[in-house]
């Protein structure tokens, strides 16, 4: 099953290399990885989505925890939280199809962030399945390219991941 891990690491050069190197060396199945700054200047937070059974997950967590720059790993799977991903989708859009695409965008509560004579760029933030669904519908119009950030996740309630 899929697990979402919040990995807090030291904000130092080489940390991402250490993490991505370990993931590939140990042949873990990573669906997505997203990194960014946090409320603490010295900490970077990496959200990793991994496809793993219980034993594999134990190994992922244990091996990542061994890295000196990894401060804390929290499994957010099954914890009440907000899981989001952002996608930018460039679709073919002629004057005939444009209004149809606008309807789809409205239904998905997405945003149109760029329009020109032949294409539109749509921005959607949401759970992975929602983005997948939008992509599927837009496929009929011809998708030129898609970029997705990978999932980020945050638990609900007052307790931060570092204390979970």
């Amino acid at each position, binding site marked *: 099953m899929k697990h979402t891990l919040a990995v807090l690491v030291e904000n130092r050069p*080489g940390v991402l*290399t250490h993490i991505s190197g370990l993931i590939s060396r140990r042949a873990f199945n990573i669906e997505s990885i997203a990194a960014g700054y946090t409320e603490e200047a010295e900490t970077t937070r990496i959200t990793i989505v991994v496809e793993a059974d219980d*034993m594999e997950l*134990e*190994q992922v967590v*244990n091996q990542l925890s*061994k890295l*000196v720059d*990894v*401060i804390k790993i929290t499994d957010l799977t099954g914890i009440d939280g907000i899981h989001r991903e952002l996608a930018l989708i460039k679709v073919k859009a002629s004057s005939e199809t444009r209004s149809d695409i606008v309807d789809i965008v409205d239904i998905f509560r997405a945003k149109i962030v760029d329009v020109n004579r032949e294409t539109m760029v749509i921005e959607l933030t949401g759970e992975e399945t929602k983005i997948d669904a939008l992509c599927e519908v837009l496929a009929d119009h011809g998708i030129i390219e898609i970029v997705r950030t990978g999932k980020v996740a945050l638990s609900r309630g007052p307790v931060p991941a570092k204390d979970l």
Partner: protein
Amino acid sequence: MKMTGAQAIVASLKNEGVKVIFGYPGGAVLTLYDALYAANYPHILTRHEQGAVHAADGYARVTGDVGVVMATSGPGATNLVTGIATAYMDSIPLVLITGQVAVSLIGRDSFQEADIRGITTPITKHNYLVKKVEQLPRVMKEAFYIARTGRPGPVVVDVAKDVFAAELEYSYPQTVELRGYRPLYAGDEAVLEPVMAAMSRARRPLLFVGGGVNLSRTAGEVQTLAERTGFPLVLSLMGLGTVPSVHPRNFGLVGMHGTYAANMATTECDLLVGLGVRFDDRVTGLLEHFAPKAKVIHFDVDPAEVNKNVRTDMRVLGDLKWSLPALLQRLDPAETAGWPGKLAPWLGQLEEWRQENPLTYEQRDDVIMPQAVIETVSELTRGEAVVVTDVGQNQMWTAQFYGFKHPGSWVTSGGLGTMGYGLPAGLGAQVGCPEKQVIVFAGDGGIMMNCQEFDTVAKFGLPVKVIILNNRVLGMVAQWQRMFYGGRYAHTDLSGRTDFVKLAEAMGVPALRITEPRELRETLERVLALPGPAVLEVRIPSDEDVLPMVPGGARLDQMVMGGR
């Protein structure tokens, strides 16, 4: 105190109590070497960087101290890679200081530039690139702390060339602050209760002793445990030496070239207590059939070893120096006194296996048998030597036939299986224990991979005795070709024109060769008694196999037996 980066490194080494450095200078570390020169710091100059790292590794294994290596940027650093991987696989503490090109040149494919941090990331416990001189004291402190604590391992400190010359206000930190690194020492004592209950219930228990016992210096505790519980024990390759080979509870090496008794015991036991082991595939054979009837208890310092290979039923996480005394303390003498009696049928069974199929080999008087060489050295040294091996058949015969007596007296590349390891590791071991007899067993293949270190041995007058078991083939690979590839010896014939006696002598090491069994004992006596270094080349048959053998991927109890 104001000083240069190079001086700060030397001062840090003094602060860490480093007695000797193994290294090889070069352009990027000129300033560092100049500081060593000024400080007159003890330094062993090897003839290849790989020799330096293996030597530091051998030194670390016998002393328990951190081995320190220095090398220059680019090729100097990349020549360390095999040695770093060797140390990483066997959890050996090393700190390796490499020069890097100047900060302004990093990333521009400059002369002798290699991204050694990137290259060594998967084979180090941690690594650093130091681009600011102020970072040096903290990085050095952390490097030694990380290398020697928890599960030990190698740490690379790559230092940009201009950092060596830059000035800083030096003060060495007393403590380290690493939010992400909290090595486990003491674990949860409560987990010992179910462990003891399982030990008490077991009718066919077995202790499985690994390299972690050597690393944590808990051989005494393990022996006490075996004696108080009456449990028999088997050893991984890295666990050799922890319990004397002749100890009645010791049933020897387990795994691919393990003893019949050890492999049968592992297959039949109902409780397997792993102490500082990582259940390597060379031990387990076919994983699904490893210890199939047993509950498995795993004692280890590294949480990542839990369930990595073998699914365990109970774990005791923490340093063995904590867990073993805690366990011994909880064992009630009144209860354990009854255990050996209760285990009598099981011990009887093991003894039967041992008698039925002891380690043996064909006794011949026309050729010198390699096993006889090891046995004779074992007798002559009374098991008191520090025994170093290369990799392959020589290593397995030594593991099987040398009678070990002391922990820390066994130096071998277990995990990585690095050919060329023996000679340099042996010289490092001799530097670490000058008063002991250090013996290197190598094959004719492995010795050639780092034979330049004969020069180092001679130059420093290190009294290492190197025994080359010359079978003129890449023996272990040829054995597999014989057994599994229909005798098609693809490129394993190493017979050439190299005269090993002349080779050693050319570098200043006295050498002898023997070919006849009757020469064996007397020549060995003479060689071992020499005050300085010496080489003895022993001609052995080309087709002798290491047996027993569990073929790759087979069950542990499916052994090809040997001996006649």
